[in-house]
């Protein structure tokens, strides 16, 4: 108890300096927490992927489609329970800035493959009955103030023209980790239109989503599907949904790595600031340490005092920073939902915050502690200022 009191008294001895240091630490921890959340939101799609879903696409690359006739063949493969398919539509809503993912899918099977998209029974029925019907996520609908029954026009980039949709349903996520910014419409709508304007591209699916019976047979099933289409005009590449999503991320790896590195740089910067504060504090208190030594306190006690003081500073800062992370993340999520549909502060981030605070305290206290322990009593007492 006495120790804690001394530590706090020492840490807040110079109020202005302590305040500035803690402010710096809090800002750094806040920035660190937000950056970690940015990285984890990059991986949100991977985390949300189910182990019992496979994605089949053209082996050449994602921009090539597969014939729709593959659906029946895939269905015959052992272990396959459901087959759904769709195309990336890539439509623009009014302006390029308003980006959100939009796909056309085979609706019945798609929603049975994704139980995490919760859609009201009546809305689902309306959607299935309307060829021009569309379903949007809750956040997306809220952002553009869409109501059920509204007509939404997307400008096609891959499929030219203006496409009208009628909003028939708004889905909710089963929990917080589900992306609520997607937009789906009926594959048949796309296909029938494409048949008229560009028959070469008709009856093709950009990807097949496959549900398997049990997660442990997913890998074997994938191999079997690919073997079936080997040496055909459109060879396939089948992987688990997780691997598929990771593949997208791997392409943007450089950016993720850069953010990761930068998040450590901020810790380094603030480490220098804390180390600076500790160096100054201990220099001013050299006389005190000499007196403590005269009284019989050993190297261990003095080290404890210095480390403890640094820890008090960094922990206070970290606490403030970490608690500010949550409201900041909420603002962030609202402002940047286009880039980051899922923006949740994870528990790991908070643990990392604490770890960073401890690390800062230690690295800041090492040199001053060594100096304070080594200084001879007479020299310490002689020193003024």
């Amino acid at each position, binding site marked *: 108890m006495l120790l804690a009191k001394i530590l706090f008294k020492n840490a807040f001895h110079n109020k202005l300096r302590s305040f500035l240091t803690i402010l710096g630490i809090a800002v750094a921890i806040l920035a660190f927490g937000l950056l970690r959340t940015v990285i984890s939101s990059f991986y949100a799609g991977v985390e949300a992927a189910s182990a019992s879903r496979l994605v089949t696409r053209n082996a050449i690359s994602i921009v090539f489609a597969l014939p729709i006739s593959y659906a029946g063949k895939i269905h015959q493969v052992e272990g396959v329970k459901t087959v759904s398919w769709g195309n990336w539509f890539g439509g623009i809503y009014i302006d390029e800035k308003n980006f959100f993912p939009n796909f056309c899918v085979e609706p019945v099977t798609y929603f049975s493959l994704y139980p995490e998209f919760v859609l009201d029974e009546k809305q689902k029925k309306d959607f299935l009955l309307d060829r021009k019907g569309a379903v949007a996520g809750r956040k997306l609908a809220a952002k553009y103030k869409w109501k059920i029954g509204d007509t939404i026009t997307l400008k096609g980039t891959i499929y030219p023209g203006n496409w009208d949709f009628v909003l028939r349903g708004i889905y909710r996520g089963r929990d917080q980790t589900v992306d609520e910014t997607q937009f789906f419409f009926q594959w048949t709508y796309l296909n029938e239109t494409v048949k008229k304007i560009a028959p070469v591209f008709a009856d093709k699916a950009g990807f097949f989503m496959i549900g398997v019976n049990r997660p442990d047979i997913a890998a074997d099933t994938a191999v079997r599907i690919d073997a079936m289409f080997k040496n055909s005009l459109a060879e396939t590449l089948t992987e688990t949904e997780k691997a598929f999503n990771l593949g997208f991320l791997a*392409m943007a790896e450089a950016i993720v790595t850069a953010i990761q590195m930068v998040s450590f740089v901020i810790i380094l910067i603030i480490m220098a600031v804390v180390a600076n504060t500790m160096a100054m504090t201990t220099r001013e208190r050299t006389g005190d340490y000499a007196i403590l030594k005269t009284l019989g306190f050993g190297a261990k006690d003095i080290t404890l005092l210095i480390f403890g003081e640094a820890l008090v500073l960094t922990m206070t800062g970290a606490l403030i920073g970490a608690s500010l992370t949550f409201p900041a993340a909420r603002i962030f999520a609202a402002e940047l939902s286009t880039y980051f549909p899922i923006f949740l502060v994870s528990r790991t981030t908070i643990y990392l915050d604490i770890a960073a605070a401890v690390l800062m305290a230690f690295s800041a206290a090492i040199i001053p502690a060594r100096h304070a322990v080594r200084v001879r009593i007479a020299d310490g007492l002689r020193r003024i200022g």
Partner: protein
Amino acid sequence: MALPLSYSIRNLWRRRLTTILTVAGMALVVFVFAAVLMMAAGLQKTLVETGSPSNVVVVRKGSQSEVMSAIGRQKAAIVEMLPQVAAGEGGRPMMAREVVVLISLKKQGEEKSSSHSNVVVRGIQPPSLSLRHQVKLVAGRLPRPNSSEVLVGNSIAQRFQGVGLQQTLKWGGRTWTVVGIFDAGNTGFASEIWGDVDQVMQAFRRPIYSSLIFRLKTPDAFDAAKDAIEKDPRFTLEARRETKYYADQSEMMARFLRILGTTLTIVFSIGAIIGAMITMYSAVANRTPEIGTLRALGFRRRNILLAFLTESLLLGFLGGGIGLFFASFMQFLTISTVNFQTFSELAFRFTLTPGIIIESMIFALAMGFLGGMLPALRASRLKIVDALRAA
């Protein structure tokens, strides 16, 4: 009379550890600041150099990139006959009909993982090379027309597996032999694979062109050409100058970098400014009697203010210099990432421009100034008697 500069320098030297730590913090901030700017500059440089102002790119209306575009053979023939198209060798129009597709290739050093990157395969015609003066063959030879032979850009050759000379690639149910490697400098073409247009179209069963590229007869004929293409009811095409076309493609990425960069550096600079402030406050506190003496000797308040401000600006200057020194090494680094807009691989280099050096130094000095202003004010406001008594 002002206090000599050596007074400030010596003070910094006297408290070496503190100075080093403060400068280190600032240097890191400047490093990040400069690195982000260099990245954005490199990206822009790459994509601007990719285009030439006298070339025009024609794609289908509404397509954001060549990959999404589709132009039939007939339409290509009509565009070729426009009077604004320059004539090349033997009076033939300087226009290339090209097809662009993406294939996935494995990066080097990632043998085990299943990750692939999307690489642009461009089907070219003979004029394609003369339209891009930046592209030079550095190894091997040009592919024979109408053969399954390909050229590989230098940044692809360095980064991906199985794309060396005489190695073969398999896509579209065919085997393609790499017969040459071209150097496209700092342009987007360096991240592409080039093959014969008709062969590529055949292999992918995609009997339509992606884009048409032609040289303008005179650079100012662009508006006339644009009008002729976009107002013709037979097409749904749009024409853009090549420079603008590539600048548009970097827009989203550059904006992302700018937003990320400015937010980060602003937050980071708070840390560094606080560091400088702590240092300078303690410098003032430690030197209170000294300040009193100086004042008693006849130095004015503004001299004191200036001396401490100089000290703080020196901190910023050192931090800026060191940060830039390390940032300049980043120029040897090439990053290769996916461009979200075209969905394909793009390699670019960190580029240090004089503008970035100036901006970084201004930024560093501003941090020093902001950090030193309040402590310097406090120092200058001390009363002589109080200051002297503090000893």
